[in-house]
């Protein structure tokens, strides 16, 4: 918070500087207004962190934003990883597998398709774009139920493929790739590669891919997040806990306490596992910030 309350000497020193278009005068009022909004953004995460440190007993008996009688975070983490023979680790690995395979394949297919749309002529391009871009606006959930019924016919439900195959398709990624390939790859470089005798596939692999890397990372990141956070699709496709991703696992744990009978209360595990689930994403977010932005810029400009 030192950023909102700069020391007096520093601001005086700065006052002597000339303000430019690039470096206008800082505004404490504006900063405070934005900071208020960030409180809204951070509050639930703070709540999550605090409550991950409570035992089940403290969780039901203490105020939400105060700590419990003892610090149980490490006990909770240990319990998360050991409960039910350590099924949480399995869910974590499943999620990683879904995310890495799904995001890699979908990004690759989108790059391939986006490149072709931008740089290669073929018949039916307009119709193709029209249908695929149109599909972006079909709610994923509307399509998920027929997908389930179809996959059930094919015997694919309750296998990892039921989650992976739909995640391979990323029309929005294709769109981003198309836009970025049009912008980032100069036609004459491709022509030069072709004149050198490179086939289309080699041209793509040696010239195209290199120039599309920033967009590729962005599309990969978006796929990554959307697959990591996917809830509805695995909810309907899977019924074997061995194949659950984290989102379903956590919701199952949460529901245990809500089911009548000899079920157990696992709220401390639900909270702690929620925290563990978002940590990898937060790290990815923080470390790969610039890619988020560069990719979004592409989509934003073309729009």
């Amino acid at each position: 918070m030192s950023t909102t309350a700069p020391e007096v000497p520093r601001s005086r020193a700065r006052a002597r500087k000339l303000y430019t278009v690039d470096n206008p005068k800082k505004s404490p009022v504006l900063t405070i207004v934005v900071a208020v909004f960030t409180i809204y953004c951070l509050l639930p995460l703070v709540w999550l962190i605090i409550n991950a440190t409570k035992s089940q007993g403290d969780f039901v008996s203490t105020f939400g934003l105060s700590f419990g009688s003892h610090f149980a975070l490490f006990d909770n983490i240990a319990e998360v990883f050991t409960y039910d023979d350590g099924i949480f680790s399995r869910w974590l690995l499943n999620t990683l597998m879904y995310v890495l395979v799904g995001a890699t394949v979908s990004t690759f297919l989108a790059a391939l398709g986006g490149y072709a749309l931008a740089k290669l002529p073929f018949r039916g391009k307009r119709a193709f774009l029209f249908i695929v871009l149109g599909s972006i606006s079909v709610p994923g959930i509307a399509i998920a139920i027929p997908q389930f019924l179809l996959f059930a016919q094919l015997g694919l439900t309750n296998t990892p493929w039921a989650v992976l195959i739909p995640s391979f398709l990323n029309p929005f990624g294709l769109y981003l790739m198309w836009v970025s390939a049009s912008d980032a790859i100069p036609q004459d470089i491709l022509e030069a590669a072709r004149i050198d005798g490179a086939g289309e596939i080699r041209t793509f692999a040696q010239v195209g891919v290199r120039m599309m890397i920033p967009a590729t990372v962005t599309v990969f990141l978006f796929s990554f997040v959307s697959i990591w956070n996917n809830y509805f699709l695995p909810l309907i496709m899977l019924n074997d806990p061995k194949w659950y991703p984290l989102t379903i696992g956590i919701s199952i744990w949460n529901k245990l306490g809500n089911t009548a009978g000899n079920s157990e209360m696992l709220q401390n595990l639900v909270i702690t596992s929620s925290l563990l689930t978002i940590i990898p994403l937060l790290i990815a977010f923080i470390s790969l910030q610039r890619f988020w932005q560069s990719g979004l810029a592409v989509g934003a400009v073309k729009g």
Partner: protein
Amino acid sequence: MALATEAPPASPPRRKQRAGFVVRFRNRQIGWLFIAPFCVLFLLVFIVPIFYAGYLSLFQQRMVGGDVFAGVANYQKLFGDSQFWDGVVRVALFTAIQVPIMLFCSMCLALAIDSRRLYGTKFLRLTIFLPYAVPAIVSTLMWGFMLGVRYGLFRQLNQWLGTDVNPFTPSTTMISIGVMVTWAFTGYNMLIFYSALKSVPHELYEAAAVDGANQWQVIRAIKFPAMRGSLVVTIIFSIIGTFQIFNEPQILPSMVSNSGITTYYTPNLYAYNLAFTGSQQGYAAALALVMAAMTVAIAYAVQIHGMRKALNG
């Protein structure tokens, strides 16, 4: 290898011939080779399920007697189903209110961050974007716990302020869901706007400064037009997003009481419950198709302008 060394003279014309063919093929259809995997997948995951849903929607499933061909009966029933329309009106209303508020916040934040007048810009930008990383299931759990009126933070708030606000009554639940959705996506949309602002050529600002334009004039004349394209994108994505609201109303009822969340609270929730609790897959398929058609129609209405530009450009 041996062949190549034995007949060097013959090879140049042959190569030319082959290249010619490849060039011709390349010029016409090689693009299809590149998009073929995507197409196959698109067929399997999107087109075929749509047609399959269309087929299924013509049947009714019965616990006694199995599937019965019903023609368009499911559609007739759907158009007269007050529960379906109840959900449609609810999400439409939600979209009409939540999306403008959220996008307004996103735009303001993007402008604030782009103004370079904030202390700790990087930190603030990242913080606002962070909620996007939180899975909807986790965010619903957190907000559900936090907004609980008896023991959540709201009880404390009510005590301090002497109020009696309950975030989960039939009239306020949708607002609470709005708070959750806004929380999750404001930062995402902000980043889209911010990216658009970043791409404004620097010279424009300098020119404006030379002309003596003030902050508001710069915003109106330069920044708003720059964000217009992004606005189309964000509106479409927000509409699609809100029309699919599912996780929140599916998870909340077990956490809070009397929230007014019904099994048909949103069309998606209704479709899910029809298909999986009521064993009415045919009816659910009809519902899913009608919803898809409605969303596409709305999205196209917003999109068509930007799309046409992009296709021609």
